[in-house]
């Protein structure tokens, strides 16, 4: 099955195996390894990307179901993403960094929809992204720094 999918603004026509997940496409075929895999079954949020602006888990998204859709990953460029990166660094919102790309994409999704979230809204929006190192305080602070006050 042929799927046309836009990734970070670039159109790709993929002759996708039906079983191929978006995460596999990104990592194994498009060399976009910024998106990490940690559980492969939708439980940890590590592989979060934006699909038509909404945060989804790339391990549970079939490429075949993405025909005509647009994907953004941590490798994408946007002023908001840049600001979040700088803020994560400044607040130490990361330790090992393995969950960070997914955290950033959830944060982008939140702030695009809701540029001035309350702390509670930040916590809710980020609650599907596990961080085993426990960098959560810095993550909240980083998102709040970038939010419009």
């Amino acid at each position, binding site marked *: 099955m042929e799927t046309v999918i836009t990734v970070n603004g670039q159109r790709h026509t993929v002759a996708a195996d039906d079983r191929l997940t978006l995460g596999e496409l990104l990592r194994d075929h498009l060399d976009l390894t910024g998106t*990490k895999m940690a559980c492969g079954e939708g439980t940890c949020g590590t592989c979060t990307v934006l699909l038509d602006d909404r945060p989804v888990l790339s391990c549970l998204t079939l490429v075949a179901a993405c025909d005509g859709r647009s994907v953004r990953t941590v490798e994408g460029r946007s002023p908001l993403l840049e600001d979040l990166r700088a803020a994560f660094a400044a607040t130490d919102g990361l330790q*090992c960094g393995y969950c960070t790309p997914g955290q950033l994409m959830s944060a982008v999704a939140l702030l695009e929809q809701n540029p001035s979230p309350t702390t509670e809204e930040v916590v809710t929006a980020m609650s*599907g992204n596990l961080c*085993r190192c426990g960098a959560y305080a810095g993550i909240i602070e980083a998102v709040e720094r970038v939010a419009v006050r």
Partner: protein
Amino acid sequence: MARLVRTEAVVEGRTEIRYTLVEDDDTPEWEPGERPPLIGEPAARVSAGPRTAGTARFTTDIVLPGMLEAAILRSPHPNARLTGLDVEAALAVDGVRAAIGPADSPGGEESAVLTDSPGYAGAPVAAVAADSRAALRAGLAALQPRYETAGFVVDLDEALSRQDLFSDPSEYERGDVESGFADSAATVEATHNMPAQLHSALEPHCAVVDWRPDGVTVWCSTQSIYGIRDDVAGAFDLDPERVRVISEFVGGAFGAKFGSGAVVPLAAELSRRSGRPVRLVLSRREEQTTTGYRTPASITLKVGASADGTLQAIEGEGAIGLGSDGWTYPIMEPAKSVYACPNVHTIVVPLRQNLGPAAAFRAPGVMEGTFALEGTLDELAEQLGIDPLELRRRNHSENDPATGRPYTSKRLLECYDRAAELAGWEGRDRLRSDGRIRRGMGCASQFWWGGGGPPAYAEVRIGKRARATVTVGLQDLGTGVQTACAIVAAERLGVPVESITVRAGDTALAGHGPFSGGSMTMASIVPAVRAAGHKVRQQILQLAGDMFEIGADDLTLENGEIRSVDGALVHPITEVTGQLGNAWVTGSGSRGPNPDGMAVNTWGCQIATVAVDTATGELRVEKVVAVHDVGRIINSMGARSQVAGGVLQGVGFALMEERVVDPNTGLVVNANLEDYKMPTIADMPEIVCDFVGEPDPHLAVGVKGLGEPPIIPTTAAIANAFAHATGVRLRETPFSPRRILEALG
């Protein structure tokens, strides 16, 4: 000149004697009270750029031309004998390039990785490497293993009743506990139970091995690149110099990524056989069942004290479940070493179970033992009517109670005072109420080692633009140790932290470094970096003296400038380094030994505030005040992050984390991140962190480690806070709604 020096190092409670190569070092220690620039200031981690840009290459991201994907066939049975395996059929599958069974296992007979008598569900039986994931699946399916199953034991109590010991019991005794109890006005006996906690690092264990005739290159997510190098060289009889191990970024480890496990030797053997690079990444389920765990433990302590709370005796019996491998983690160390108690007798029984191997997990043993000891002491304080914090103060020990050795430094009393002040301990009874939501506050002490020691080496070089590179032979798990290296080098070189590049995670680089663990890394490596940086500093000053015709001793280097002591001469450092062309000024440094005859420990106190919904059994940790004494702080922001991470893992252990094993099938039933709960961002308490922070006067740079300390007292403080709130003791983790509702009765 370098010397061989005999040293004694304490690694997670085990004392190791070794000889180590130490370079001459005339780096002056800072004066007491001196506040050197940059040291202790908050600094962003040096690798934040690639880690936030998605360009950091973790082992799971490594792709090599012609690389094969590999996977492991594992026993579904907790105890079985393999009666059939069709390796030939797997090899006949299109796209399969290598397949091996127990007969071909790396590791030899002694430590074969693949087994024909799997002793736990998940034990590796065979491995396959193939061109594609489809071929890999087909290859694994073609193996058609057959098993004869046998009986098994997974339950800790059952293992205890069968007395299937992994090794001899570990016993400790000082004084005479019988007479101690006879002298006691009050005694408390309590049993604390805890299930296994799974490390659950988000990057699974993984390796990429490229075996070539002229050498083997291993990419691996590991806590010890040199450990992996030695393992591979040993297993395959190779010259270690021909084995290169690369681990640039590690996606969390927490103790589970020591040793080469199954992934490294299997990927190596499959690469050797296929002539192709091989990548082997574990699935989440494999990660949660085969790569280690904090041992389940049952700890019974009996403590006796006189009426004023002075401890007279501690008697302890403990059992831990090591599954199929591990060592006797020091669960009785807190009972033995935290407080001044003349009479102590403990025994620990390490048990074998049909479960995967145990592994060190952040403060292995000591965290479990602290939950037991601090919970029991809290009961004692209650019985004696003594403020719990005061009881701990009264049993403060000025010297190591086990050896009588003096401490290099100990500021535990200050930790108590500061924590009490930050938490509002004096007003804690005002939190209590009879309503549905009950609040309470509890405290616990923290003890750990963390002095580090040799061997650790570093190289520093500076180039024409006064930008410097620090090279260290270690790996960064996210602890921030590389950032600390940058800070310490920047201070010596008088340049900003941002102008330092840290290179690490590659055995082909200069500078053999320590493993990352035991809270030893920072204290081990930082003095070596400082010594190397100092040598470069001295050379720069010498060159400046040559250029400006002034004695080097009359020059200093700070804020990017070379100045004469009298202030008459000021030149940017680049005026000197600019003359280097493409040469560098380099220096190397090494870690010297710690003082003999002294105990090196870290200390702390945490105070937790909890809110219990007595109707639903939901427990919320509202706040944890964490005050630790870990010597000099190099990066205040990084240090706080370490504390927050440790506390959060402690909250996870206390409230929700539990490996659940079905006794009927021997299977772990929650080997995934849906059923195995760990804290989300919404579970994070407010964490108030402080350090009493004075440099350790007996240690180089005054630094001690901070990896384990923050996780150690958290569970105990939470349990004690729960008791303060409800009057009911929780002696078994996790404190889930079920357990709380059952406890409240």
